[in-house]
């Protein structure tokens, strides 16, 4: 276990426990204010927990009980580098000196640090910018320099706080690919609310809501079989939770959801918690109850209509459907319209938990 993390901060309603194996990248997903940045601050040493501990490669970085700090390694001594949403390049230093800052601060000689910096600039494709001032760089270039600067410090753990959120959509993909290459085999935690970041960068996902980890698993598990509403939304899936009944999943509202390949009791006891997910594109919208093949039908009222690629995403209280603009026009859908949402049982994935 490379990173062992457990911390509470009652003042922020924060209570998180995480473990991460060496060489793995963990994505922390969650809405704003859920506690993602708090987690990074606790690991980096800018916040101290009331209770808990952070251990990295067997070395205790902080240990506290009931507000009393028993062990504390200051931020500069942790080998934990922080990459924020803003590049925060030191404006008075050239690109090369920014990247050389870490090695230099860790006691390397001027020439040695500059050589290391040039090496990292080469690996991130920044060599032509070495002598520029940060103020003359574009947002994407600046963030690239910030990545090189963080890695040149040779951290044991790299923390990335929404590293691509401040970038234009046309430069984010290139940096995301660069990060993917650089993070491979490195222990890292990246916070994000973009599913692409999690998919491309992370091996594992932890979903944080209201200061608690509500879901934890590999990226594939969480994004294909989410258990929390947030993970489902970020994965672009409809999610219904309830209990297992004789005919399928029963929601708290009493709706019965029939699923495909539902292992008719294979390990699921009646009354056990269960989750059903299906894609918005599998959902059809009608103005009246629709009879026919084995279908699940949900009644709802249109809340929002928003463009989604070539389609229109229709949202009711708890579900989403992707329909063509033509259907929207034919059905005269506007916010407030009463609709029936229908999805084939074969399109619904039901699983325990």
């Amino acid at each position: 276990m490379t990173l062992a993390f457990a911390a509470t901060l009652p003042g922020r309603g924060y209570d998180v426990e995480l473990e991460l194996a060496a060489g793995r990248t963990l994505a922390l997903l969650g809405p704003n204010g859920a506690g993602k940045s708090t987690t990074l601050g606790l690991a980096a040493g800018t916040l101290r927990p009331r209770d808990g501990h952070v251990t990295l490669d067997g070395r205790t970085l902080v240990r506290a009980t009931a507000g009393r700090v028993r062990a504390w390694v200051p931020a500069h001594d942790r080998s934990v580098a922080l990459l924020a949403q803003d590049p925060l390049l030191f404006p008075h230093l050239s690109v090369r000196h920014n990247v050389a800052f870490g090695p230099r601060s860790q006691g390397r000689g001027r020439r040695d640090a500059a050589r290391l910096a040039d090496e990292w600039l080469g690996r991130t494709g920044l060599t032509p910018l070495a002598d520029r001032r940060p103020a003359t760089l574009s947002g994407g270039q600046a963030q690239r320099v910030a990545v090189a600067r963080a890695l040149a410090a040779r951290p044991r753990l790299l923390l990335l706080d929404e590293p691509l959120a401040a970038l234009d959509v046309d430069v984010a993909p290139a940096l995301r690919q660069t990060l993917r290459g650089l993070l491979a085999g490195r222990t890292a935690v990246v916070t994000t609310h973009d599913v692409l970041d999690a998919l491309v960068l992370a091996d594992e996902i932890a979903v944080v809501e209201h200061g608690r980890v509500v879901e934890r698993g590999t990226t594939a598990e969480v994004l294909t079989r989410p258990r929390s509403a947030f993970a489902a939304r970020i994965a672009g899936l409809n999610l219904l939770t309830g209990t297992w009944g004789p005919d399928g999943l029963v929601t708290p509202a009493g709706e019965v959801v029939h699923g495909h390949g539902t292992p008719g009791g294979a390990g699921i006891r009646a009354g056990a918690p269960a989750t059903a997910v299906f894609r918005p594109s599998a959902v059809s919208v009608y103005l009246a109850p629709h009879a026919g093949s084995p279908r699940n039908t949900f009644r709802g009222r249109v809340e929002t209509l928003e463009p989604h690629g070539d389609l229109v995403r229709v949202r009711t209280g708890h579900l989403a459907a992707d329909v063509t603009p033509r259907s929207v026009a034919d059905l005269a859908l506007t916010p407030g319209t009463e609709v029936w949402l229908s999805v084939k049982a074969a399109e619904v994935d039901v699983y325990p938990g």
Partner: protein
Amino acid sequence: MSGRATVAARPARRRADDGVVAAGVPRWAFVPAVLGGLLVLLPLVAMATRVDWSSFWALVTSGSARTALALSLRTAAASTLACLVLGIPMALVLARCRFRGLGVLRSLVLLPLVVPPVVGGIALLYTFGRRGLLGETLEVAGLQVAFSTTAVVLAQTFVALPFLVVSLEGALRTAGGRYDAVAASLGARPTTVLRRVTLPLVWPGLLSGAVLSFARALGEFGATITFAGSLQGTTRTLPLEIYLQRETDPDAAVALSLLLVVVAVAVIGLTYRARQHGGERGGTP
């Protein structure tokens, strides 16, 4: 981001013809604004008209004037240095640390701004004077502070310190702690962060704080005359010399006053240029 930084660093580059229309400046505001400007400038002009130019050079280069000017520059420089040594850590603590009583501490640090300098001088006398709080101990150690050049520097530092602390604390708060946190996460010790990141980022604020302190020290009168006295060559700085000359030789007082104004303006002008230069190097965040 770069655009914002450029504008912030070069206010002087804003020209009248850049097309920007000032909002939020009512027309009547120009009347008090001009009156305020006149209140500052008119007395200086009035004083300049009273200068006896034929004897000006002789008056400002007289032995006592030269001695006083040299003492003033020396002591003001020394007290600016003392302000930097003491004030930078003070501003750092006030801007970055969080503890109970910080607000009270901040108000107390500003006390010399509101206390009349004469009162400050008396307070210093009761601290470092022969029978003062620390004076006796110092005397045993063979040090006599009161009525020495050291006393001049102490008095000037006492009144000038808040200027440095206030302007640097403001700059530190504006800069925020985010760059410091990044620097620390790259492995830089707190002293390295201060030297290589924090202070370069607040360089303009530090510079203007130091200049304000120097100017305040250069003009110090009340605390100096109370605590250090007026001994020629030892404690009689230029303001004291001017005050003394006013009794006997008003022409000399006016000439020396003008000299003091010229020195002050020169310091401010040099700083402004240095600041602009710093801005063009990208010294401002």
